[in-house]
């Protein structure tokens, strides 16, 4: 993602989704879910549930005592020789990073896949300052060449065919590129290898931040994460404050949950633990290490008890994979780098209802996400609160829904809450529907209700239940 979103119109975004998207999405999600299910089976579902509870409890403990653990992490990183910076918002985080880059006269930066840097629109800011910044995860590299953002948090370019990628490589890299995954990967390896060796700065995110030792944990498969944090002379990690965990023992739980839930691997290929810069000049690795702790609205999420558990997320992507809405529209419709159920609850709060008021409604509330989440985030419960926030407002945000929706919701609540009004309403509706009904269905109704019938017919209102029941009762007595 090059620029931060303005207002997100989920409904109109879904109309831009290319027809091949949902097939590509479902192929990927089915594969990940299948791999995951096999590993959960191998562990036994009972043990998996114990792990999930432990994951939930350790993450909830961490964010409940987050100030304590962040201070502990800050001290530990500093003791290890790293430099800690605090960023209240995206703007501040970008400024801190640009300052570090300017001090080292950075012209080229390489970057590992990181949702926090997507969130702050870092690439755009670096490029505006005349610094070349390269995404190095293969999928991110491809979508960056294409000039778009990630369509999935684990496999960002899964919606592009190898033919499209080959054409992109020929066009942007000026190389002969056959449409074969193996060859295309080799081209990316060769191109990026030169950049890794030339870069003056490596930028990473962090999957976890261990408070007791100030350790940044990164989980990757390709090795680009290792390159970014090992080869360039300066390493900057941008980590959301919610990533903190108390100790290494917490990782014994979370690492077992993360890769299994994400890609269906027992562990990802490379899990790195970085505590400050190398301890002696004779060691290889970046001489300077910076940690930027990013708030950007996370403190506000913690202020609403109903929504607090949003921050338990470990970004595995399992809820994207299982979500019926995500499986049909893919990532771009959400208008934010983190998509799917977890993206919805996160972005709605980080961006606020004025920008992201449509997102809490991009869900069927089926609850599959709650059941698959490895840290048991009650996603639909949070979604309901966020819908209420849009319509009625709460202590953090005023209502932003159009007055008509608010009025409609209030009338609906009134009618459903009173027996008399309900009966009157149902009688009226049955009268009013008569001109539109044909054989038990309404094919077309007047605006604004026609939004429903644009895509499918609406069943006609049946007879009043009480009337029907009375009639049945009388009939039974006559017989």
């Amino acid at each position: 993602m090059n620029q931060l979103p303005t207002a997100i119109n989920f409904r109109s975004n879904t109309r831009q989704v290319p027809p091949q998207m949902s097939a590509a999405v479902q192929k990927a999600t089915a594969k990940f879910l299948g791999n995951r299910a096999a590993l959960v089976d191998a562990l036994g579902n009972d043990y998996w549930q114990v792990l999930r509870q432990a994951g939930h409890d350790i993450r909830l403990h961490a964010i409940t005592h987050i100030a304590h653990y962040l201070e502990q992490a800050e001290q530990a990183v500093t003791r290890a020789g790293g430099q800690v910076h605090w960023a209240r918002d995206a703007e501040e985080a970008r400024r801190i990073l640009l300052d570090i880059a300017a001090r080292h006269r950075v012209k080229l930066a390489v970057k590992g896949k990181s949702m926090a840097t997507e969130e702050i629109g870092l690439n755009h800011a670096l490029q505006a300052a005349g610094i070349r910044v390269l995404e190095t995860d293969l999928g991110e590299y491809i979508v960056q060449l294409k000039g778009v953002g990630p369509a999935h948090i684990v496999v960002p370019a899964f919606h592009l065919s190898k033919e499209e990628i080959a054409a992109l490589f020929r066009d942007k890299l000026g190389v002969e590129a056959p449409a074969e995954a193996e060859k295309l990967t080799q081209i990316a390896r060769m191109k990026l290898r030169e950049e890794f060796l030339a870069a003056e700065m490596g930028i990473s995110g962090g999957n976890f931040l261990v408070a007791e030792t100030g350790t940044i944990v990164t989980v990757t498969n390709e090795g680009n994460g290792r390159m970014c944090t090992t080869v360039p002379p300066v390493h900057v990690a941008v980590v959301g404050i919610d990533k903190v965990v108390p100790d290494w023992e917490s990782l014994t739980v979370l690492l077992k949950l993360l890769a299994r839930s994400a890609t269906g691997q027992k562990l990802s290929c490379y899990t790195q633990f970085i505590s400050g810069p190398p301890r002696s000049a004779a060691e290889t690795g970046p001489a300077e290490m910076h940690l930027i702790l990013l708030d950007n609205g996370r403190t506000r999420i913690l202020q609403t008890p109903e929504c607090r558990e949003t921050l338990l997320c470990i970004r595995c992507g399992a809820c994207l994979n299982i979500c019926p809405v995500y499986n049909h529209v893919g990532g771009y419709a959400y208008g934010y780098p983190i998509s799917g159920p977890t993206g919805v609850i996160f972005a709605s709060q980080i961006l606020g209802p004025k920008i992201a008021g449509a997102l809490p409604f991009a869900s069927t509330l089926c609850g599959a996400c709650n059941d698959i989440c490895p840290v048991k985030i009650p996603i639909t419960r949070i979604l309901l609160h966020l819908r209420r926030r849009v319509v009625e407002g709460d202590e953090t945000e005023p209502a932003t829904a159009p007055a008509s929706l608010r009025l409609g919701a209030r009338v609906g609540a009134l009618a459903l809450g009173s027996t008399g009004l309900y009966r009157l309403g149902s009688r009226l509706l049955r009268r009013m529907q008569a001109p539109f009904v044909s054989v038990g269905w309404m094919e077309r109704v007047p605006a604004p209700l026609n939004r429903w019938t644009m895509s499918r017919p609406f069943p006609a209102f049946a007879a009043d239940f009480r009337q029907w029941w009375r009639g049945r009762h009388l009939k039974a007595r006559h017989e």
Partner: protein
Amino acid sequence: MSRAREDILGKLEAAGGRRPGAPPAPIPPTARIAPRQPAGPETELTQLLTEIGRLNGVTRRLANREALAASLAELVRAEGVKRATCWTTPDLEAWGVAATLQRLGVEIVPGHADKQRVASCELGVTGVDAALPETGTLVLMSSPERPRVASLLPRVHLALLRPVVLRPDLHQVFAETREAGYTVLISGPSRTADIELTLTLGVHGPKSLYVWVMDAV
């Protein structure tokens, strides 16, 4: 910048209803899990090698120094190795890895040399500080004798492992690594499925991973 720190911590303390400086509640016991129970040493080793094989690593057990020298000669031929970089830990020195490679006509590049030169090596040889049978994972630490780039930049990574480094679970590994400055867990060669979900090895890290068990050496 310290304003930002005070602002963030202040808001967090207000949200958590916590007095500044107060210690956190103890971590609930339900947030902890017991480590896996190991089988016997031979079963554990077999499981480790099976798992590494599943992750597309190539394993071999070596009985003595002569077997190591012969296997190195075979590897140099098969992978076309002209330059190599090696850890210089006591184990690798005692096994004479660098000396054997030199006798085979391979140029040894120190891990601390210019990164372009290290990147030009076809082979990186390392030891293993711990290993996890359940996941086929190698644990490598960092020190002046253990350059991080040796398991990262060359196209081929050869890891020499002594059976005593096997650990039952992450708990035991972390007890040894938590104070370290840098640790990496390696499970198979570098991989991606980013293009049409086709598994492809050797994206940025090594394309081939060899793990040789130094049984009684």
